[in-house]
C-alpha cells in the first residue's frame, strides 16, 4: 500500500505545481479539484481504518523518511496519526475540499494562482496534523500560513493591505515565540531529536524541572495563544477574517487556527504538566474574562457580518483554553471535539457569508433584512450553521462545549459558571444576526440592490461545499462517537493519571 499520509500532503502540492503549466483553465480546474479531493478521501479512508489499525506508541499508519536532517539535527519526516490528530486530519481534508470546491466556482481574478495557493495551504494543513516530528509540524504550519498572507494581500476585501500587514505581524510573532518555546523544550529536555514520541519518553523520565516547565509553557502559551487569538492577542482575527477571501478564511479560521490549540494539547500540555498548573489560573482568567465574556459582548456590538463571525470565533476559542486550563480527560477531550466542530461550523459560516454578500453587495447587517423571502435555502443553511456555532444539540459543537463545561467544573466552579453564561451571549448575537439578515422586512437599501439584480438562491457550486460541511456537523452532532472514541483513547493516555 502506498503511504497515504505522504500522498495526502504531496497530492495538493503536486496539483499546485501542475497549475504552473500553461493549460486551459478548465483542465487546470480539474487538476485543482483532484488536488483538493484526494486528501479528503484519504482522510475519510484512514478515519474508517483507524479502529482496526495497529498502533505504535498510540500512532497508526506510521512511516518515517530520512530527509537528510536526521544525523545533523535529529529531524526526520515522521508521519502518523493518533486519536487527537486523526479528527483534525479529517477536518483538514474535508474543509480543504469544501474551500477548494467553493474556490473553483468563485470568480476570483488570476484563478490559477488563487487555486494554487489554496492547494499549498491544504498541503500544509494535512502535513501539520500528520507530522509526529515537531520540526515538520512547525514547517507545515509555515507552509500553510504564507499563502494566507498572500491571499489576503491580493484578493482581500476592505482594508486588505492593513489587514494583511497586521495578520503577518501578529502571526509571525506568534509563530516565532512558539518556535522559541519548542526549541527551548528540545534543548532543556536533552532530547536527541525532534520526534514527539522520543520527546515524550525523555520528558517522562523527569528531564524537565518545574521552573523550566513554567518558562517553556509560558512561551508556548503566548506563542500558540497569539495564533489562536487568545485574549488580548486576538485583534488580528476579526480584522484578518473580515478582509480575507472566503476560501482562505475558511481554511484559516476552520483549520489552520487550530494549529496553536493542537500544539498545546498534543505537545505542550502533556509534556509540561507543572507548567500548565503554574499558568492555569491566568489562562482561565484570560479565557473566561477575555475571550468568552469580553469578546462575547464585543461580538454583540458588530454590524459587519464577517467581523461578527470573526469575533464569535475568537469567543469560542475561550472555551478551548478553558478546557486546557481544566487539564483533565473530559476537558481536553472536549477541546478536541470542539476544535473539529468549530472548524466545520466557522468554515460554513464564512462560506455562506460570502454567498450572502454576492446577493446583498454588503456585509453591513443593518442594510440587510428579509433575505429569506428570496433565498430560503441559503437562509436555512445559514440558520443551521449559526445554531451549530451557538452550541445547539444535534449539531457537533454542542458536545465539545458540554464536555469542556463538565471538565472545567472540578477545576473552577466560578470560571465554569461564567463560561456557561456565554451560551446566552452567543444566542444573542447569533440569533440577532440571522434575524437581521434574513427575517422581517426587506430594508430599503437591500430593496435597491435586489431590484437591480434579483438574488438567486444557492447555486449547486455553493450548495455542494456547504452541504459537505453541514453533513459533517450533523453526523458529529448525532454520532459524536465517530471521533470521540479515538480522542478518548489518546487523551486518556496523555492526560489520565
Amino acid at each position, binding site marked *: 500500500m502506498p503511504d497515504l499520509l505522504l500522498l495526502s500532503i504531496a497530492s495538493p502540492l503536486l496539483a499546485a505545481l501542475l497549475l504552473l503549466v500553461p493549460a486551459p483553465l478548465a483542465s487546470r480546474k480539474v487538476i485543482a479539484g483532484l488536488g483538493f479531493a484526494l486528501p479528503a478521501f484519504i482522510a475519510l479512508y484512514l478515519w474508517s481504518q483507524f479502529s482496526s489499525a495497529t498502533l505504535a506508541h498510540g500512532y497508526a499508519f506510521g512511516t518515517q523518511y530520512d530527509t537528510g536532517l536526521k544525523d545533523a539535527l535529529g529531524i526526520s519526516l515522521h508521519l502518523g496519526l493518533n486519536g487527537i490528530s486523526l479528527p483534525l486530519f479529517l477536518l483538514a481534508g474535508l474543509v480543504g475540499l469544501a474551500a477548494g470546491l467553493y474556490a473553483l466556482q468563485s470568480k476570483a481574478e488570476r484563478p490559477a494562482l488563487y487555486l494554487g495557493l489554496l492547494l499549498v495551504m491544504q498541503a500544509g494543513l494535512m502535513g501539520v496534523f500528520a507530522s509526529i516530528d515537531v520540526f515538520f509540524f512547525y514547517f507545515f504550519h509555515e507552509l500553510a500560513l504564507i499563502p494566507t498572507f498572500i491571499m489576503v494581500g491580493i484578493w482581500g476585501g476592505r482594508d486588505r493591505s492593513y489587514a494583511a500587514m497586521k495578520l503577518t505581524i501578529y502571526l509571525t510573532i506568534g509563530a516565532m515565540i512558539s518556535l522559541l518555546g519548542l526549541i527551548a523544550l528540545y534543548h532543556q529536555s536533552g532530547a536527541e531529536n525532534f520526534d514527539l514520541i522520543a520527546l515524550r519518553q525523555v520528558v517522562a523520565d523527569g528531564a524537565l524541572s518545574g521552573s523550566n516547565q513554567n518558562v517553556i509553557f509560558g512561551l508556548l502559551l503566548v506563542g500558540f495563544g497569539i495564533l489562536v487569538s487568545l485574549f488580548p492577542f486576538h485583534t488580528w482575527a476579526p480584522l484578518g477574517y473580515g478582509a480575507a477571501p472566503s476560501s482562505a478564511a475558511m481554511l484559516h479560521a476552520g483549520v489552520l487556527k487550530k494549529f496553536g490549540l493542537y500544539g498545546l494539547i498534543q505537545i505542550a500540555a502533556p509534556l509540561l504538566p507543572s507548567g500548565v498548573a503554574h499558568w492555569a489560573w491566568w489562562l482561565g482568567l484570560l479565557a473566561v474574562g477575555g475571550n468568552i465574556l469580553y469578546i462575547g459582548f*464585543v461580538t454583540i456590538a458588530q454590524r459587519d457580518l464577517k467581523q461578527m463571525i470573526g469575533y464569535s470565533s475568537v469567543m469560542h476559542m475561550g472555551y478551548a483554553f478553558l478546557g486546557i486550563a481544566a487539564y483533565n480527560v473530559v476537558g481536553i477531550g472536549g477541546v478536541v471535539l470542539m476544535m473539529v466542530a468549530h472548524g466545520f461550523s466557522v468554515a460554513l459560516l464564512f462560506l455562506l457569508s460570502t454567498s450572502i454578500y454576492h446577493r446583498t453587495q454588503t456585509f453591513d447587517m443593518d442594510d440587510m433584512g*428579509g433575505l429569506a423571502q428570496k433565498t430560503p435555502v441559503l437562509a436555512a443553511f445559514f440558520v443551521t450553521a449559526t445554531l451549530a456555532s451557538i452550541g445547539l*444539540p444535534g449539531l457537533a459543537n454542542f458536545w465539545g462545549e458540554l464536555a469542556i463545561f463538565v471538565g472545567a467544573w472540578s477545576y473552577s466552579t466560578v470560571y465554569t459558571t461564567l463560561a456557561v453564561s456565554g451560551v446566552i451571549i452567543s444566542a444573542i448575537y447569533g440569533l440577532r444576526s440571522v434575524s437581521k439578515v434574513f427575517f422581517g422586512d426587506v430594508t430599503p437599501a437591500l430593496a435597491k440592490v435586489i431590484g437591480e439584480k434579483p438574488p438567486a438562491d444557492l447555486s449547486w457550486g455553493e450548495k455542494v461545499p456547504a452541504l459537505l460541511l453541514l453533513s459533517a456537523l450533523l453526523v458529529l452532532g448525532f454520532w459524536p462517537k465517530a471521533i470521540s472514541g479515538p480522542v478518548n483513547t489518546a487523551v486518556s493516555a496523555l492526560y489520565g493519571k
Partner: protein
Amino acid sequence: MDLDTIFGFPPQLFAALALLMPLASAALIALTLRRQGNIAALVSTFTAALVAVIGLTLAFKGARFGVNSPVSAEWLNLGGFTLSLGFKFDDLSALMLSIVCVIGLAVHVFSLGYMHDDDSKARYFGGLSLFMFAMFGIVLADNLFMIFIFWELVGLGSYILINHYHFKASAAAAAKKAFIVNRVGDFGFLLGIIACYAAYGTVNLNDLAALHSPVAGALGVGIPLLLFCGAVGKSAQLPLHVWLPDAMEGPTPVSALIHAATMVAAGIFMLCRIEPLFALAPQAFTVVMWVGAATALYAALCAVTQTDIKKVLAYSTLSQLGYMVAAFGLGSLKVAHGEASAHEVVLAAGVGAAMFHLTTHAFFKALMFLGSGSVIHGCHHEQDIFKMGGLSKRMPVTFITFTIGVLAIIGFPGLAGFFSKDAILYLAMENSTPVFVLLCLTAVLTAFYMVRLWKLVFLGATRSDDAAHAHEGGLSMTIPLVALAALSVVGGYEAIYGGHFDGVLKLIAHPHGGAHTTIFAVSLLVMSLGAAAAFLFYKPAPADTLQTKAPGAFASLAGLQKSFDAVYNYYVAKVQQRFALVLNYVDLIGISGFIVRGGAGVAGAVSLAARALHTGSLHAYVYWFLGGSALLWFLATR
C-alpha cells in the same frame, strides 16, 4: 402486568421507533419535500398518527421499562464521563407520552385544514415533526443530560414554528426572544445538571431517586433550584414568562401544541422527574411554590385586559402553568394510610396534583387554542375579540366545544378542570394558607377573564364584517375540536385511565369529610363569582367595558402586564447594547494602539516586508520563501 413483547418485538424497540419516526419525517421533508407542501403535510400527519398508535399502545398495554434495569446506550464517553441515550418509561412518562400523542395528532389533523393555503406548508409540517421528535426525547429520557439535549431541541422546534411568518418583523422578534429567554433558563438548568453530576456522580433519574441524603453545603438546595431554572424558562414562570405571549406570533395550531399543551408543560414534567432531589432539600420546594403562585396570579391579572383572543389564552396558559408549578412546590402531604389506620405515609401529592392538572389542562387548553384557531380562520384572520361577537350562530361546533373548554378551565363541577383544580386547592389548603388564598383569587380571575372572552366572541351582535361572514372550517378542523372536547369532559375521571398511570394518579391527595365540603364550596363560590361578574359586567361593545368604566384600574392592569417587557427592553437597548458598544470601542483602541506604538519599532521591518506583498512582487516573495527553505536545507544537511 408488564408487557414483554408487542408482535414479538420488545416494547423498547417501539419506543425507539416512536422517537425516530418523527425525526425521519422531518428529515425527509427537509431534504426532498420542500416544494411539495401537500405531500409533506400528509407525511407528517401520517407519522403523527402512527406514533400515536405506538405511544398509546405502549402506555395502555402496560409496557414499562428502564426503571429496574437500564435501557440505554452510550452516546459519548470521555474519561470517566459517560453520557447515555436511555429510556425510562414509567407511569409518569407513559402519561406524558399519551398526552403528547393525542394532542400532537389532533393538532396535525387540525393543521391540515388551518394551514391549507399556506405557502410554506412543508416547513411548517417539517417543524411539527421535528418538535414531536424532540418532545418524545424529553418524555422518554432516563437522564438529565438527555433531557437537556431534547429540551434545547424542542426550543428549536418552537423557534422555527414561531418564526413561521418570518417576513413579519414581529414574528422574527418573537422567535428570537423565545430562544434567548429560554437560553437564560437553560443556563441555570445546565449548571444544575453539571453540578448534580459533580456532586452525586450521576444524572440518571433512577440513581437520583435512590439517593438518601443531599450533598453537603449550599448545593444540596442549589442543585434542585438550578434545575428549576430550566422549568422557569420552558414553562414561562416569572420572571422569564415574557416570551410566551409573544410566541403567539406563530400559527395557532402551534400555540395549541407547543405553547399550551406540551412543550411549556415539559417544565412541570421535568420537575416531577427530579422530585427526589427536592425531597432531599425541602426548602427548594418553597421557592418553587412561591414562583408558581406569583405567576398564576400575575398572569391572570394580565389576561383581563387583553384584546387579542390568543393573548388571552396565552396569559391563561401562563397562569395555569403557575398553578401546576405551585402545586409541585406545595410538596408532599402526610395522609392516613388506609381507612382507620393510625400511621401516616408521606405522599408526593405535589407531583400528583401537578401532573393531573397538566393532563386536564392539555386537553381543554389545546381545545380552546384550536377553537380560537377555528375562530381566527373563520373570521379571516381577525384576532381582536372586540371585532367579533355573535359567532355562536355562525360557528356552532366551535361554539359548543369552546364552551366546554371554558367550563372545564373555570372548574365547572363534573368537567376535567374541576377535579384537577380541586386537587391543587386542597393541597394548598393543607400546606400553605397564603398560597391557598392566592390560588383562590386566581381561580376567581380565571372564571372572570374566560367568561369575558367567551361572551365577547360568541354572544351578542357581530361587530365587524369579518365576523359577520364567519364560517366553520372543514372536518379536519372540527373533528379534533370534538375529540378534545370529549376529553375535556371526561379527563377528570381517573377511571378513564384504566389504572395505567396509577404511579402518578395515586399520588393525588383527595379531601375527605369536612375538607371535602369546604373545597367543594370554595371552588363553586370562586367560579360563580368570577363567571357571574364577567357575564354581567361586560357589554358586547367595540370597547372594553372595564376601560370605559374604570380607566384607572384598566391602566394599572395594563401597566402591570407591560412592566417586565419595559424593564427588559430598557436593559437590552440601554444597558447591554451600550456596554457592548463601549467594549467594542475599547477593542478598536487596542488595535490601533498596538499599531501606533508597536508599528514603529518591532514591526517596522516586518511591515516593510509585508508591504512588499501587495505591490505586485508576489512571485518574488514566493521565490524568496522557497529559496530560503532550500538554503536552510542545504546548510543543515551539509
